[in-house]
């Protein structure tokens, strides 16, 4: 009898430790299977579904990076789509207002870069480039600027906005971040709509295509997939590093983490900036793919959709959030005939998931596959204990 009890107890602890390893390996198996399917998908699907999948990957980047912030760091931002839009509008505006010229225009604001001039077009009044052309030497070439610096700048702008907001708000309780980001997001949208001379407002801002020489969507498909995989790998690495551990400790008990020597605000701001940049990255490539931007990309229901994807998938698992986004985006297409009711269904599912399945619907399923029963009550001690060890090192 005694032996039996001992046996069970050792077995259960054994199960727990191997279970942890198994859980990670299952996660990787799932990831590899999904990746292989994604890689060969263009062989089987039509252009239209390729488009659906590109947008699904876009949402997966947003949902997983939002879940890094929410599920790992416990910070709830409603500005994720605003950062995405900042990245997108940065490349859009650079393309609209910057030109490279082999001769100075004399009429526009311009700076010399080697033997080229970087020309800033004006938003109001006569197009200064057209006016200046009259006096420019014959054979002057005018180019659109290359896309790569714009892409980098777009990501940086999103990151800088994240830094400013994070530094301002993350010193306070979580509710302040939610309050400030929801206000920032809506007000930024009003501004973009309200300055049509610069942003073209609701008319839509044209953006250069990433692959102008082809009408095929396949290059876009692999680009968006590559960005998704790269961001996921980066986030996995981050989540399993010391930083990820600190973040989980902060989420479970901010004061305890601070007492153990974790610089709480610094890590929160850092994560906020990183996730803002990932959102900006998604936005930059969305802009170069759909080639037209309107402020509607950042309305709050869009933000709500991303949150629904992350929560229904499982906000504490990056992979579950990403796959949740893929499944929901594809189901939204499949359920097209239900029109506006589709989002009502996912809204209801979001609320029910929050209330009754805090780990989401996919994450527990993925754990079940690995035969691991989650033990939520022990996580707090685990995280605290691990941080304690880490800090003492």
């Amino acid at each position, binding site marked *: 009898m005694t032996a039996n009890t001992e046996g069970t107890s050792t077995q259960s602890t054994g199960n727990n430790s191997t279970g942890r390893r198994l859980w990670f390996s299952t996660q990787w198996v799932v990831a590899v299977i999904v990746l292989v399917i994604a890689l060969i998908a263009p062989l089987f699907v039509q252009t239209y579904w390729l488009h659906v999948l590109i947008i699904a990957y876009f949402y997966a980047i947003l949902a997983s990076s939002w879940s890094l912030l*929410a599920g790992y760091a*416990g910070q*709830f931002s*409603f500005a994720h789509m605003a950062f995405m839009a900042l990245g997108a509008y940065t490349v859009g505006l650079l393309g609209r207002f910057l030109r490279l010229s082999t001769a100075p225009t004399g009429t526009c604001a311009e700076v010399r870069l080697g033997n080229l001039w970087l020309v800033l077009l004006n938003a109001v009044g006569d197009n200064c480039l057209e006016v200046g052309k009259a006096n420019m030497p014959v054979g002057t070439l005018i180019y659109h600027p290359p896309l790569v610096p714009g892409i980098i700048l777009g990501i940086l702008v999103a990151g800088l906005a994240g830094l400013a907001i994070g530094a*301002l*708000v993350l010193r*306070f*309780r*979580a*509710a*302040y971040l*939610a*309050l*400030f980001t*929801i*206000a*920032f997001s*809506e*007000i930024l949208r*009003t*501004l973009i*709509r*309200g*300055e049509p001379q610069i942003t073209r407002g609701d008319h839509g801002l044209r953006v250069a295509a990433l692959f102008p020489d082809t009408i095929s969507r396949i290059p876009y498909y692999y680009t968006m997939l590559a960005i998704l995989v790269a961001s996921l790998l980066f986030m996995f690495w981050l989540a399993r590093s010391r930083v990820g551990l600190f973040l989980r400790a902060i*989420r479970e008990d901010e004061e305890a983490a601070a007492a153990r020597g974790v610089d709480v605000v610094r890590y929160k701001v850092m994560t906020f900036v990183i996730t803002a940049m990932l959102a900006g990255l998604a936005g930059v490539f969305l802009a170069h793919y759909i080639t037209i931007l309107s402020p509607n990309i950042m*309305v*709050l*229901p869009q933000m*709500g*959709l991303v*949150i*629904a994807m992350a*929560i229904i998938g499982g906000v504490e698992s990056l992979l579950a959030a990403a796959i949740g986004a893929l499944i929901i985006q594809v189901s939204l297409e499949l359920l097209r005939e239900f*029109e*506006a*009711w589709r*989002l*009502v269904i996912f*809204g*209801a599912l*979001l*609320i029910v998931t*929050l*209330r009754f399945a*805090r780990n989401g619907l996919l994450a527990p399923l993925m754990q079940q596959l690995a035969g691991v029963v989650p033990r*939520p009550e022990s996580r707090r001690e685990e995280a605290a204990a691990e941080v304690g060890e880490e800090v003492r090192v």
Partner: protein
Amino acid sequence: MEYFLSLTITGLVMGIIYALMALGLTLIFSILGVINFAHGEFYMLGGYMSYFILAVVAGLNPFVAVAVGGLIIALIGLIFELGFLRPMHLGHIERPAEYAILITFGLSFFLQNLALATFGPYPHRPPSFFEGSVDLGIIRIGADRLTASLLALALLAVLLLIINRTWIGKALQAVSQNKDATAIVGINPLRMNTLAFGMGVGLAALSGALLAPSFSITPDVGAVPSIRSYIIIVLGGMGSIPGSILGGLLIGLVESFGAGYFPDPSRALNYKMVFGLVIFALILLFRPRGLFGRREA
């Protein structure tokens, strides 16, 4: 000077309605410790309710429709509180602060899409309370807007009376100060939570119903008023009733002066909200507890 006075009047007229809506948010926050991220959607539903009540019951007095609409929305709020917020206070939910943010935002997403699916994206406008406009000497103001403002003022007065003079009001105040002590003297804090949430969203719905004849109702109409309310409660101090009233009036004035003195009148309206965001940032930088907040934020 005349222009200045007219801007002051417009600012105060709107500010009173802003205060009413923000007071609902404050009531919920001070009792439940929850920020209702679906506040704007209850505002929106209040507007739709009074529209459809008037459309169904022909010849009904519009004020009755406003009141009935507010009551129905308050009941919906009660039910939501019982189903989704009470478990949090019973300790059934891990990390309740995060849950509160997400569940109310989730509700906002759900309600906004529900309104879109049910009512469509087109604006609905209930009939006017009174046609035309009223001459206040310096400025003419829409009769509907003035009516809304006066009713909001009356509601504020009634509410302050309830909170300060009645048993219920004192019980609510007690819960906001100390839950355990309140329970010991025989007040059930859980019931007060439900009541406060119902009252709070009812106030949002009433604001929406009062303003619906002036600005028509669409499914996304709640975003701006709710964000304005968030700024007001941070400005006034989270959980402070006088703070949210004064904050509402101040934001009304800021928007009115900001738009009135903006160099380019055609774009002025777009920048109204930007001033609010600037104020939000300044409060966080220099006085995070707001005008009347408790020192803890």
